[in-house]
């Protein structure tokens, strides 16, 4: 496996450092060759920067990719938006030599060069394709047999597919495969692929953002999901923080929101506190305590000898 740099992005480091914590714990447990490198900036965030200044969007992303290109590293990020934006620009520049030359003309003046050769991956496809589900199964101490998990892919893990090329953009399976590999049931429900709607919170439309969160959370409540599992800080913000705001207003929701790395961390034997899950706004303990109760459940073969004491064929 090639060494890779982790691109943390702004949101995780500024608002959810506990996600960085669980990601590091998981990467270290698997002994994966990751590095922290200096010099990254915002990826940049598309809806904000691209709408105002396209040139700045392309240049900033190209510079971030150039940093890993230079060191001969790949890039992995626990943020879907970062990977999607960086990949979009990488694909565009690789397909357009003239634009690439223009960007490199500017980058050269600060001593950088965009080559566009590094592999950029989001953490979930990375675990699916590069680490492998068999490896995950070998490594975990306990699976999630009996737990009912609702997945939220996050639009930018899989779209735009022409830039990311990692899963079916309209019927993705990789995240499901991993969850099933961890022994849990991956619930199928109407709003599974619905966008979280966090983008609305960034354009002064907070109430509409809440509307979006409500649609999905209500369905999850109705189908009895034990948790909503996702791997995007923006979606996390939407379902954890905004759900908390709605609960405070008296809405009866209460769906634990768990980051992919936290779920993996629990399976590897870390406690919820070690993984920073106690920093969530919405209480995760219903999920954790149900899981712990399941572990006290007798195994299917327990007490089997007691039933085998009758007369046997050998008398």
């Amino acid at each position: 496996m090639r060494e890779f740099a982790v691109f943390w992005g702004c949101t995780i480091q500024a608002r959810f450092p506990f996600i960085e914590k669980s990601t590091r714990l998981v990467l270290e447990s698997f002994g994966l060759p990751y590095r922290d490198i200096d010099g990254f900036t915002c990826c940049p965030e598309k809806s904000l920067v691209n709408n105002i200044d396209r040139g700045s969007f392309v240049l900033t992303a190209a510079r971030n990719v150039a940093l890993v290109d230079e060191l001969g590293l790949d890039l992995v990020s626990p943020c879907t938006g970062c990977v999607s934006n960086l990949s979009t620009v990488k694909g565009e520049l690789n397909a357009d030599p003239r634009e690439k030359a223009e960007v490199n003309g500017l980058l050269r003046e600060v001593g950088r060069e965009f080559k566009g050769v590094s592999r950029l991956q989001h953490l979930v496809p990375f675990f699916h394709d590069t680490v492998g589900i068999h490896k995950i199964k070998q490594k975990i101490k306990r699976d999630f047999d009996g737990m009912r998990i609702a997945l939220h892919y996050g639009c930018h893990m899989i779209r735009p597919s022409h830039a990311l090329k990692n899963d079916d953009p309209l019927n993705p399976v990789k995240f499901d495969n991993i969850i099933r590999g961890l022994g849990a049931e991956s619930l199928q429900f109407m709003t599974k692929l619905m966008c979280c709607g966090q983008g609305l919170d960034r354009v002064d439309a907070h109430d509409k953002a809440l509307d979006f969160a409500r649609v999905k959370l209500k369905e999850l409540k109705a189908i009895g999901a034990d948790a909503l599992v996702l791997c995007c800080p923006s979606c996390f913000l939407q379902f954890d923080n905004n759900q908390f705001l709605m609960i405070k207003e008296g809405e009866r929701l209460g769906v634990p929101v768990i980051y992919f790395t936290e779920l993996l961390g629990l399976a590897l034997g870390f406690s919820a506190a070690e993984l920073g899950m106690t920093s969530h706004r919405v209480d995760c303990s219903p999920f954790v305590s149900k899981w712990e109760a399941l572990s006290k459940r007798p195994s299917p073969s327990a007490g089997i000898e007691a039933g085998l004491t009758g007369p046997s064929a050998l008398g």
Partner: protein
Amino acid sequence: MLETTLDFKLLEMCSRCGACYSICPSCMNIPGYDPREVIRDILSGEHEKWLSSRHIWECLECHYCVEICYQHYGFENAMTALRMVAARKGMHPPQVKRGWDMFVKTGKLGEPALPARKKLGLPEPGASGADEFRRLHALLKERRAGAGEAK
């Protein structure tokens, strides 16, 4: 401006299709949000009225429309073009303006939360590339001024 960034031939097809309408999360959850209307107005040269509309900022850029579009073109391109024009005229929402100012100043949309990091036992965050980022942006501005591009 719009003519240079949008392909009207493709949009002509869009105005008769509407596949994106069937999958767009904003269409499903925001009353009155309809791509077909926007595209019709763009084609008839009446895009101006959308520049001040909330709707153009309510596109979530989830890229669903691009994926389902038979032309792989999508409603998204029309919305992005409208947002770009609106932003040039300074008609973008205040929150977007604040975000942009922070991005230009710091190269980030938020600085690492140092006390929380310490509590979690996380290492020092990697050095920011903000200085180089600002230099690069100054160069971009210079080059644009040299090329006579208004910005």
